[in-house]
């Protein structure tokens, strides 16, 4: 009954007045920014990072987690009501959610999205709690070779799951890894690729890079597309929120399927909650008796993806909390935030700081419950936020980004780097390269080098020794199989269909 005791400990932390407040503030702020189109969870967290600097570590992490799933949640509200995906993961919610809103059924769509998210959140939180302890004890047996193999698998998976050409995704990963290696080499003290620039000696920081590549380039491309946003007001059409019995009957199995799918996909490195929602939509459409209803207001098309992306958002905490390995860019930011608070992420967190570990897990459940209770009545407020014209909004967003980056260590060069990264992100956009694998490569790159170096030292330079450990062999074997499956054309075509549908 260890689990119950642990959850009780977590509950005592998460339900303390102070932490409840941080959880509430986090989920509200996250929703607020998630509602705005063009600002993803990465930029949101980076923007709001300075707010958490002054808090205790537990409060800070609870608030950041709240911002993350709040942002997920806010994205779906705008997707349904105004056909604008606030987040990438709610693109599919636009399809049927907005169609439902046009038919005057915005209320049920929003309610099902909220209920689905909440159910998924509950289940996924439980999974996180159950899976974490055994994973942590497994992770204690991990040496550098195993860590290296695990990260390799993560990068390979991110290629498999990236949209578009796998070759370009590989290029982006390698480029990210290369950037992460710039700076002083910890083993020899030699400066690598700094070209004598002092500011580069410490290497690139993650936050300015992520902010530029995701945030700035997104805003630039929004401005490029012009401000001819659909200004259709459907908020007035939100009458009854209650879904009918038929709605509930149709969406319950979709919620269950979406939750399971999202729970599994969320753990995989590189699989963002966006992949989870896309996969769930494809699944629902495939098994539906009448697939032609999809895109015209099928409630399963809202229930499934919304559950999937929320479940994925929760379970993506598993590799971060247990192994200290970020599975996506948001988790990389969380790791950054933990480091700033003086906590080194990894298997030791659960043992040394059980209150923090379990408190964060329970707070996810609390936060999900809060979102349902608070946000449904607030929908009107969120929608009115969209009446603020984009031309007034984006300078404020950029200003928050700039302050967020600057406040990391009061370093003006970080802000300049953000601007440069914005340029790079726009270039990636124009050459059809997805930034997610790049960022994952950047995050894992120097960790991989470190672990590979140590592993090779231990094995005295013999690469075969890496495969002799069973965990390593399985992880590397799986990576090799995945690469093969991408090269074989038939499977590759199936994958394209899955991702593009």
């Amino acid at each position, binding site marked *: 009954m260890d689990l119950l005791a642990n959850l009780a400990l977590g509950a005592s932390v998460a339900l303390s007045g102070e932490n409840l407040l941080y959880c509430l503030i986090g989920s509200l702020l996250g929703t607020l920014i998630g509602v705005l189109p063009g600002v993803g969870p990465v930029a949101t967290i980076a923007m709001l990072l300075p707010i958490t600097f002054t808090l205790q570590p537990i409060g800070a992490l609870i608030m950041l987690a709240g911002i993350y799933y709040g942002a997920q949640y806010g994205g779906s509200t705008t997707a349904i009501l105004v056909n604008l995906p606030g987040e990438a993961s709610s693109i599919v919610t636009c399809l049927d959610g907005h169609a439902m809103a046009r038919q005057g059924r915005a209320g049920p769509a929003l309610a099902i999205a909220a209920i689905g998210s909440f159910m998924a959140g509950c289940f996924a939180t439980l999974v996180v709690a159950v899976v974490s302890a055994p994973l942590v004890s497994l992770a204690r047996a991990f040496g550098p070779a195993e860590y290296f193999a695990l990260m390799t698998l993560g990068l390979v998976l991110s290629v498999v799951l990236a949209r578009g050409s796998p070759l370009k995704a590989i290029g982006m990963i390698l480029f990210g890894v290369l950037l992460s290696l710039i700076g002083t080499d910890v083993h020899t003290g030699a400066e*690598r690729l700094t070209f004598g620039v002092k500011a580069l000696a410490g290497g690139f920081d993650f936050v300015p890079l992520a902010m530029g590549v995701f945030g700035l380039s997104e805003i630039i491309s929004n401005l490029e597309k012009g401000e001819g946003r659909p200004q259709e007001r459907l908020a007035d059409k939100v009458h009854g929120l209650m879904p009918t019995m038929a709605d509930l009957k149709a969406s319950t199995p979709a919620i269950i399927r979406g939750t399971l799918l999202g729970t599994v996909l969320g753990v995989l490195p590189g699989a963002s909650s966006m992949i989870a929602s896309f996969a769930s939509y494809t699944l629902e459409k495939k098994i539906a008796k009448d697939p032609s209803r999809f895109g015209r207001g099928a409630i399963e098309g809202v229930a499934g993806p919304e559950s999937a992306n929320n479940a994925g958002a929760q379970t993506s905490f598993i590799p971060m909390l247990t192994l200290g390995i970020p599975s996506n860019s948001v988790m990389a930011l969380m790791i950054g935030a933990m480091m700033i608070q003086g906590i080194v992420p990894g298997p030791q967190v659960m043992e040394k700081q059980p209150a923090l570990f379990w408190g964060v897990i329970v707070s996810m459940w609390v936060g999900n419950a809060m979102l349902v209770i608070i946000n449904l009545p607030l929908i009107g407020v969120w929608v009115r936020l969209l009446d603020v014209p984009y031309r007034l909004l984006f*300078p404020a967003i950029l200003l928050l980004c700039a302050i967020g980056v*600057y406040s990391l260590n009061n370093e003006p060069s970080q802000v300049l780097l953000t601007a440069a990264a914005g340029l790079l992100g726009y270039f990636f956009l124009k050459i059809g390269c997805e930034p997610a694998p790049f960022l994952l490569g950047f995050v894992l790159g120097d960790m991989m080098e470190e672990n590979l170096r140590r592993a090779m030292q231990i094995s005295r330079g013999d690469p075969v020794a890496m495969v002799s450990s069973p965990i390593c062999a399985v992880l590397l074997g799986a990576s090799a199989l995945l690469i093969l499956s991408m090269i074989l054309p038939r499977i590759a075509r199936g994958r394209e269909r899955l991702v593009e549908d």
Partner: protein
Amino acid sequence: MVQIRSPQDFVAGLFFLGAGAFALYGMADLRMGTAMRMGPAYIPSLISWGLVATGAVIAARALVISGPRLERWAFTPLLLICGGTAAFGLVMPQLGLFLASVAITLVVSFGSRGMPLRQVAILSLVLGGAAVALFGGLLGLPMRLWPW
């Protein structure tokens, strides 16, 4: 005749190839070391060669398989957004948060067409004031707020 059938991929390939080659050039005088005791250049060189190879394959494929054309770049918003952000970084250390906020707002606002000058001026003052009140006053971040 060699023809570029997929301009987007071709540029992407050249970019990866160039980045890899540039890194190899930049690391030319660093020690490689052995697999057992890797020098500073060991893994970066492997990665760079990987980039060169990937880039070459992507660029070569772009000559055979057709793909999307290169889109036009929107230079005005690009330069104003990146420039405005850079301006914040340049102004901040000497002149403080208020003027830095005003600077970034002024510059980036011109990235959006049809924003009247008066509105830009008001917006920049409002955002500057809000930033000082929130981050300087409420959160008390250790930042310079004013030029004096």
